[in-house]
């Protein structure tokens, strides 16, 4: 069994009062160890829901999800916490660094939640992880003393420090400019080349292009599962949403598919 992720017929239904929202309508795919996969889709397509499921922040309504051999859909809350801690490294769009802690303390945080590791060893491993992302000289800086790109690299170091099975990046460049985006994507690419399984959720084609495989989600279903090298050969790589099937869409519709217009789609179980 060489699958890191094995998703079978998963659905996710949210209940908002009387209304049922079918965010995922039956997806199946596998991701092997060492793959670099981009999940794309317009807002409301269900890609955020899918990312939450892959990240063990949520469980499917039906279907099965196996992560690194673990049947995630059968796990309890506290077990999901342990899986998140040990198997998954999260990288978020908004970095989510603790503002009052130094880079080193931020990176060491997941090791504290693992438990059983002495503080000195946690700091040593955090320092090692920060050096991996090229921030060995910024360990004592607090987030506001770092640029956006540096903050995201600290977040990546934090994701790596537990030596996770899977790196899950949710719009990792969404809050960065073009140049720092490229730096972050280069880092993720390097990590993948050294063996890390990387799953990237994005709606930016440029970003998705760093991945080697593209899963395109639309309306809670898997639209396409292709190597990125082939994904944009048919048309202009900068307008992937202008697929042949939607050639006659209006500018508003195109913008919406590219995720640039808000769509009333962020249904939540509760707030």
């Amino acid at each position: 069994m060489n699958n890191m992720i094995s998703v079978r017929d998963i659905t996710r239904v949210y209940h908002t009062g009387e209304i049922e929202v079918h965010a995922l309508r039956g997806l199946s795919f596998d991701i092997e160890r060492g793959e670099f996969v981009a999940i794309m889709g317009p807002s409301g397509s269900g890609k955020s829901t899918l990312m939450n499921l892959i990240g063990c922040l949520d469980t499917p309504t039906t279907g099965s999800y196996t992560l690194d051999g673990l049947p995630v859909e059968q796990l309890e809350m506290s077990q999901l916490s342990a899986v998140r801690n040990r198997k998954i490294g999260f990288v978020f769009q908004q970095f989510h660094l603790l503002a009052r802690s130094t880079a080193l303390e931020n990176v060491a945080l997941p090791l504290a939640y693992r438990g059983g590791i002495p503080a000195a060893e946690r700091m040593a491993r955090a320092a090692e992880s920060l050096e991996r992302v090229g921030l060995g000289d910024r360990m004592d800086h607090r987030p506001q003393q770092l640029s956006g790109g540096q903050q995201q690299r600290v977040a990546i170091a934090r994701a790596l420090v537990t030596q996770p099975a899977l790196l899950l990046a949710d719009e990792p460049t969404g809050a960065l400019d073009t140049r720092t985006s490229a730096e972050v994507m280069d880092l993720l690419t390097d990590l993948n080349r050294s063996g890390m399984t990387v799953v990237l959720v994005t709606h930016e084609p440029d970003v998705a292009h760093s991945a080697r495989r593209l899963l395109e989600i639309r309306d809670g279903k898997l639209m396409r599962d292709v190597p990125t090298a082939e994904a944009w050969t048919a048309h202009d790589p900068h307008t992937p949403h202008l697929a042949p099937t939607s050639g006659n869409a209006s500018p508003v519709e195109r913008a919406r598919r590219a995720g640039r217009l808000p769509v009333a789609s962020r249904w939540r179980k509760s707030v």
Partner: protein
Amino acid sequence: MSTHERPLVRGATKGEREVLPQTSAQAEDELWAGGIGWIETLGMSLASLRANPLRTFLTALGVLIGVASVVALLAIGRGSQAAITASITANGANLLTIRTQGPPGQGGVRGAVGEGGTLTVADATALANPQNVPDASFVSPEYSGNAQIVAGALNMNARVTGALPVYPSLHNNTLAEGVFVSEEDNRAMANVVVLGANVAATLFPNGDGLGQQLRMNGKSFQVIGVLASSGGSGFGSVDDGVIVPLNTAQRKLFGARAAVGGEWSVSTIVVQAASSSQTDAALSEINLLLRQRKNLPEDGSSDTFSVLNQAAILQTVTQTTQMLTLFLSAIAAISLLVGGIGIMNIMLVSVRERTREIGLRKALGAREGDIMLQFLFESLALSGVGGLLGLALGAAIAMLVSQSGVLQAQLSLDAALMALGFALAVGLFFGIAPARNAARLDPIVALRYE
């Protein structure tokens, strides 16, 4: 897809990478083990309190004031109780004072002199017999009256007590100078006098009273001793009186009133119980003996004497003071409760403010219990800090009161621990709701919270 092509990312060694995916049963067990320890969690809580010192202080202020007032009030209450006790027991502890008193129902009119109700020296002798009253340690018959005392140009009216040498043993008197009345003085009806501290200071302002002569009721007496001040003020402190031999008082100073049908009467017989736990036993033994001697009914319905139990008075006064102290402390404790509500308020705000941080911690593997504990520790630390500072402030207030000289406040460890414990309980109680709010946050929602 081939991996491990470029070891560009340092530290990602082959060994580590390849061990992780093996999810054997053993590895799975290892997966569920561990978790953050409480010491680590406490560190996180303290760090977030340190990050906002002013808010932390203001939040703890309510508990601080509550604990300070409880501690100060209890110290002052205990101090005043001790002062009252000291004043009552200044003339001796565990005392039972027997006086004559008409039987009930006579409207306070005392029987005529010479009736069987009078206490006599013989009564005292019988009481002093250990076979009759085994729970008494000392028995002192006393005869008191007032007399005008003249020493040179100075004079004053003072209480004159005729007593036996046993007197200082009961009443805890010590001599500042000279000697006390002796058995010899009593037998010889000697005209000697021992002055109370205040009397000596009034009549002999230069402190040279010892050996001098003074006159009482026209008779000349020699000063053989001066008592040290007992400090007490209640129950006829001996500081304001003088002591002469019992026989001298009965037969020379107040003879006309003291002679009763061939017997010499005494005004009081003071009995000291051997210990505080024996006062009740001594009391019933005294009642029994005196009723026998005076042929009174054993149920005490027509007693011609009364026994004043110092321990009972002390208990009543102590209880009253304690009630008052507790009452005031309870009011102070209300401010502790209000302080707890302040903590809850701030903790609820804090949880709301740190929603995204909570989401992140959950994403990184914090369990519900870990988050709960972190916020509980925060409210406990807030109330603990408030409690400790309150202890310090309360102690300072108590010391200031002592310094001012009004009374000597008594700080006690158990009161301090009780106030601190109550403060921590308040922090725990009011911390539960915010901590549970935090623990139950959905990480997906929390991470997107704006």
